[in-house]
């Protein structure tokens, strides 16, 4: 604002020729007719007729169109009419200089404050009273912003008379600097309070009364923005927001960060990349999934696992979406790292309670990971070097600013690790790489096209000739079409692929190659319809075709005697239809109700075993095998899924929310290990394996303190899980032609309470959470042929009742910040032996009840320092260092406890993944 004033002085100084000292009467009369004239044209006409001389900032007035017809009118009256319903003001001094200002009036009496805004009788000024703007401490402002924020945007067909009635406007919220869409931005006006949020494309639609409004736009990581709009009729309105590059010394107290209270959704956590960067990680490798693990209600069985257990659910019950693609194995290097390159990630949203109706197919949670749109102004890049990986990311426009891309690659050079290991590991190799591309193309105002591609690959062999390989390959295309301001649709087509291969060739007679592949093709259409401010309706249809090659085992080489064996492929179509309405019943009460109906068709060609009814599913009870030809529907499962959530404002900064959801899952991951392993396989529901069903009720209380800078919440939930698969003793999961004989179904229940306190802004930011939760399962499947723990409920592998986490970051100066991360949780359950006996020359162990014991409690603290290079905006490269210590206290946290027969005797061990404090350093560069 200061700068705006200065601009006016420059105007005065630079164009002295314009200043004429005509000592004419104030009563120069004006006549004329203007039709859609600009203010410049208007001023010129008046200057021709009279001695008035105008001084104004062109950018402030370029949106004013004047349609007026006057005869012998006084200028002040004309200007009052022209500036009606704007916050433009004028002042006329004795020399007939007319100063046009926005938001305040000026007084030019010598000796008086230039900026008092006080009305002085010796001057003619606007009749309206001007609001006092608190511009004095607004240090963040840059010139672009001042002009944009003060500029009046006129929307619709301009008429001189303000129309009555409602006006619908819609548009995108984007990042000013790189054109990236900002999702989850809150767009609202005050008095009466009307609020909408931008969707994943940054798109929003709002209905307001015609006339003048101040629209507020807030979004995490962005400076709060305001726009002056003049609404005549329906129209487009885009907002570019400015990113908070860094906080200057004057800390801005930000208002409006009240999304947790305002949103009708509950159990939703969103982490943006800036927050994730502050969390120290092992080896300094920024890890999306490890960051998600610091959220309440999310657990993992140990440090070597990226598998997430959300609110007592299994690792296969999370729908992991990366730019809309379904990722089956999200881990690298045996689970030490997640398979997502942090440089191409914008944010991560975890839905663990209210799951929107457009998502389905997994019963526990949805983890939605998105990439930013590429910079639409210029080609930029970044690179990072850590102890194990190197990364490179490039983004920018292609040809013009209509098409942008962001692409990242990451690869490992972890083989050095093996070269310095003892000799027995020297032949080992482990490598991984991943690549991501996201292209967004704006066809025109109504059509956008997005292309996404992702590939990740892992390969390792550990001092043996057994080589393991696995890879994800995903691609999709999205076409977004805006039918009108209120209605848009997104059509998505995509393919997801995962495969693994194991080969062993050291013994030529037994040389083999084992392969498994899952392919998934999907087509979906999603629509959003903003009926009015009270109703936002979404609906859609989607279909997913599965083609799973459940396993092939083939010989390698001429000497191999391995019999080629292939398990019959599986085919199925999973379709769903959904509709959901977000209904704001009153300003305090809103409800979002959705229903999803999913249908699963298991298709031929396939041989299906039939088992004698009521008898255990064993090979001996097979009564027959039926063959179903290609395309024939073998079995159909279908059912409704309900998604309901409601919010009630208790006060301006507190709300109560409740939700109920039910979900269905038609695909099962088969693994009898506690962690996700590379040879886990996915199996579809079939006539003998029913789909998993989950339902959850939850209740939450949200309250913000200190002008919404501190968010607190309590959520409680209860969850039921049916048909989760567990495994019989000695189950064979790989290359099993009748897997149903080795699995049985369980019932599960989970409940808990999650407490969260979060401070998202300020020098000190972070969150503290505590979770009490239980996860229990029971197996009394009469078809199993055996009972686990006598058919009673027992703790699941990831039942960790107490969990407390603190994630904190403190900015010392603009360039240095420190982070501290503390985690505590109860040890996970484990099965330990009950007795010893001697057999085959050694002492051996007898196991009984599952999960009757726990490993010791887990505690870890991490520390890191982030050092930014200097903050000159205009320089060739920006660099930063991150250094820190993972597991600061060096605690040998147990990953597992086990007993083993060694040289004839029994020994007990504790296995720790990290046995000491691990220092790390990484270097990042942006160009």
């Amino acid at each position: 604002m200061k700068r705006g004033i200065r601009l006016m002085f420059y105007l005065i100084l630079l164009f002295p020729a314009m200043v004429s000292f005509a000592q004419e009467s104030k009563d120069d009369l004006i006549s004329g007719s203007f039709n859609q004239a600009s203010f410049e044209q208007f001023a010129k006409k008046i200057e021709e007729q009279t001695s008035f001389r105008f001084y104004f900032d062109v950018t402030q007035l370029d949106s004013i169109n004047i349609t007026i017809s006057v005869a012998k009118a006084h200028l002040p009256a004309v200007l009052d009419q022209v500036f009606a319903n704007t916050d433009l003001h004028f002042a006329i001094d004795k020399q007939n200089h007319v100063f046009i200002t926005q938001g305040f009036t000026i007084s030019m009496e010598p000796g008086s404050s230039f900026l008092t805004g006080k009305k002085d009788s010796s001057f003619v000024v606007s009749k309206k009273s001007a609001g006092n703007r608190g511009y004095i401490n607004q240090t963040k402002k840059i010139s672009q912003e001042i002009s944009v924020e003060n500029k009046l945007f006129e929307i619709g067909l301009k008429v001189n008379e303000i129309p009555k009635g409602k006006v619908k406007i819609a548009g995108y919220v984007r990042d000013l600097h790189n054109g990236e869409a900002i999702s989850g931005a809150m767009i609202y006006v005050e008095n009466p309070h009307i609020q909408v949020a931008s969707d994943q494309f940054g798109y929003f639609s709002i209905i307001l009364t015609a006339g003048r409004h101040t629209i507020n736009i807030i979004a995490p990581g962005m400076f709060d923005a305001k726009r002056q709009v003049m609404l005549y009729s329906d129209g487009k309105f885009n907002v570019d927001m400015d990113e908070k590059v860094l906080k200057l010394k004057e800390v801005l107290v930000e208002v409006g960060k009240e999304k947790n209270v305002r949103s009708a959704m509950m159990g939703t956590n969103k982490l943006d990349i800036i927050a994730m960067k502050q969390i120290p990680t092992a080896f300094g490798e920024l890890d999306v999934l490890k960051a998600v693990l610091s959220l309440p209600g999310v657990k993992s069985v140990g440090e070597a696992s990226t598998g997430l257990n959300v609110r007592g659910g299994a690792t296969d019950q999370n729908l992991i979406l990366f730019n809309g693609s379904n990722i089956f194995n999200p881990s690298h290097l045996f689970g030490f790292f997640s398979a997502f390159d942090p440089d191409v990630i914008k944010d991560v949203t975890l839905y663990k309670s209210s799951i929107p109706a457009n998502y389905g197919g997994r019963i526990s949670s949805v983890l939605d990971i998105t990439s930013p749109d590429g910079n639409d102004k210029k080609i930029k890049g970044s690179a990072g070097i850590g102890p194990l990986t190197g990364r490179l990311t490039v983004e920018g426009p292609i040809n013009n600013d209509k098409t942008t891309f962001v692409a990242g690659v990451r690869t490992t050079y972890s083989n050095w690790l093996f070269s310095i290991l003892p000799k027995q590991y020297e032949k080992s190799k482990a490598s991984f790489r991943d690549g991501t591309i996201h292209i967004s193309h704006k066809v025109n105002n109504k059509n956008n096209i997005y292309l996404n591609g992702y590939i990740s690959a892992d390969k390792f062999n550990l001092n043996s000739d057994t080589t393991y390989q696995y890879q994800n390959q995903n691609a999709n295309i999205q076409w977004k079409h805006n039918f009108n301001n209120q209605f848009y649709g997104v059509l998505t087509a995509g393919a997801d692929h995962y495969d693994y291969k194991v080969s062993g060739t050291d013994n030529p007679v037994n040389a083999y190659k084992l392969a498994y592949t899952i392919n998934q093709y999907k087509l979906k259409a999603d629509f959003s319809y903003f009926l009015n401010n009270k109703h936002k309706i979404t609906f859609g249809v989607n279909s997913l075709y599965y083609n799973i090659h459940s396993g092939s085992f083939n010989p390698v080489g001429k000497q191999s005697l391995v019999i080629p064996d292939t398990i019959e492929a599986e085919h199925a179509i999973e379709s769903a239809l959904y509709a959901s309405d977000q209904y704001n019943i009153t300003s305090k009460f809103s409800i979002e109700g959705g229903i999803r109906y999913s249908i699963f068709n298991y298709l031929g060609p396939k041989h299906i075993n039939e088992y004698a009814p009521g008898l255990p599913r064993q090979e001996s009870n097979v009564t027959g095998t039926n063959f179903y030809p290609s395309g024939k529907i073998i079995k159909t499962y279908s059912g409704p899924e309900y998604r309901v959530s409601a919010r009630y404002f208790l006060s301006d900064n507190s709300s109560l929310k409740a939700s109920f959801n039910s979900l269905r899952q038609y695909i099962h991951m088969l693994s009898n290990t506690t962690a996700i392993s590379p040879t886990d396989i996915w199996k579809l529901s079939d006539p003998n394996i029913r789909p998993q069903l989950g339902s959850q009720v939850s209740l939450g209380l949200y309250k913000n303190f200190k002008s919404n800078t501190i968010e607190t919440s309590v959520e409680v939930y209860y969850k039921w899980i049916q048909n989760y698969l567990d495994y019989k003793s000695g189950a064979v999961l790989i290359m099993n032609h009748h897997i149903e004989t080795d699995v049985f179904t369980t019932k599960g229940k989970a409940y808990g309470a999650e407490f969260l306190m979060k401070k998202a802004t300020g020098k000190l930011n972070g969150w503290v959470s505590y979770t009490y939760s239980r996860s229990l399962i029971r197996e009394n499947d009469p078809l199993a042929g055996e009972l686990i723990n006598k058919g009673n409920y027992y703790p699941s592998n990831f039942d960790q009742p107490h969990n407390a986490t603190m994630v904190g970051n403190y900015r010392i100066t603009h360039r240095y910040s420190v982070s501290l991360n503390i985690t505590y949780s109860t040890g996970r359950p484990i099965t330990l032996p009950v007795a010893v006996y001697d057999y085959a020359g050694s002492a051996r162990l007898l196991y009984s009840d599952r999960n009757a014991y726990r490993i010791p409690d887990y505690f870890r603290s991490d520390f890191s320092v982030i050092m930014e290079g200097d903050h000159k905006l205009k320089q060739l490269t920006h660099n930063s260092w991150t250094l820190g210590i993972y597991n600061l206290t060096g605690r040998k946290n147990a990953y597992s406890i086990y007993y083993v027969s060694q040289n004839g005797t029994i020994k007990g061990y504790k296995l720790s993944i990290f046995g000491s404090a691990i220092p790390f350093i990484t270097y990042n560069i942006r160009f």
Partner: protein
Amino acid sequence: MRRTHFYHKLVLCGICSLLFGYCKTPYDAPLKATQTNFLVVEGFIDGAAPTTIKLSRTRILSAGDTAISLKELNANVLIEDDHQNTYPLAEAGNGVYSNTNTLILNPARQYRLHISTSSAREYFSDFVPFKPSPLIDTIGWKFKDGGVQTYLNTHDPNDSTRYYRWEYNETWEVHSYYDSYIKYDAASNSVIPRTEQAYICWHSHNSTNILLGSSAKLSSDVINEMPFVYIEQHDERLSVLYSIWVKQYALDLKGYNFWQAMKSNTENVGSIFDPQPNQTPGNIHCRTDSSETVVGYIGAGNTFEKRVFINNHLMPPTWNIFPFCPTKIVPDNPDSLTFYFGTGALAPYANASTASGSPAFSASGIKCVDCTISGGINIKPPFWP
């Protein structure tokens, strides 16, 4: 493919121990002391060698496994076939029940074990088919990473065996560094002539790991180069002569699964991808109380045995590393004898004299002189060449 997590364990420990200190630390969980006392039955109904059945009881798991091993005494053990023939086994003490002669069993019949304990409980194993083991084709060896890898080849021309289990015994000859003909007698604090040689000893070791093989996925019933014992370079087992004796059992699928589960529960643990421990039920049931847990699987068939020798001559000349065995001249006086020999630090191996000419003994570390100290036996086994 068989046990993927084994490899993970390797790399995990490698990374951990190198970079982050130890990943594996001894630990004894605070276990609830449950008295189980379940019957454990181990053995094989053998048509080619005397049948031996061992009966014992499960015991409490304690730190260091200090609980006493409980043997089941005074039981009645019978082998029964499906034609009501019975073959009683005699109690040989210490929970072992056996027959001295090889039973003549009919391969067309099915066999089971019938146990009556002194507490009047009756146990039966399931009837199992008689599975003859094919011959062991070869037990061979090859150099691998500087050491010696022994392996076994076998095949069944009828393609009907498919599942195998092996037990082995290793025997090896070692020589002391010095061949001594004298020894220290503590009772008289004097050096006396040796009556038993202490220069050549034989060590013996039974397999403690479960060795299983399967050709179920192969087009013919062939076991090719099944790895057995790996002998590290310079290992004393190959310093003179080494022998391995292997006994081959044929298993049915149920028996194979039982052994496989026992192996994975007790040997293949400690990785980051451990499967859930489980107890695969064996094939022995208590008739008196069907809910009682009984541990064990009894199979039947002909076993086959084979022994091979590996001579140190076939090793590279760098194989043998000679121990550090300096000679010390110990004067023949009571104080010196008590000081050097009475404490067991040194042992005499030859007569000598001091620099001044008085009687003395050449002595060296006791392990350099007496091979029985390290657990060797100085009597040549009957099968030794």
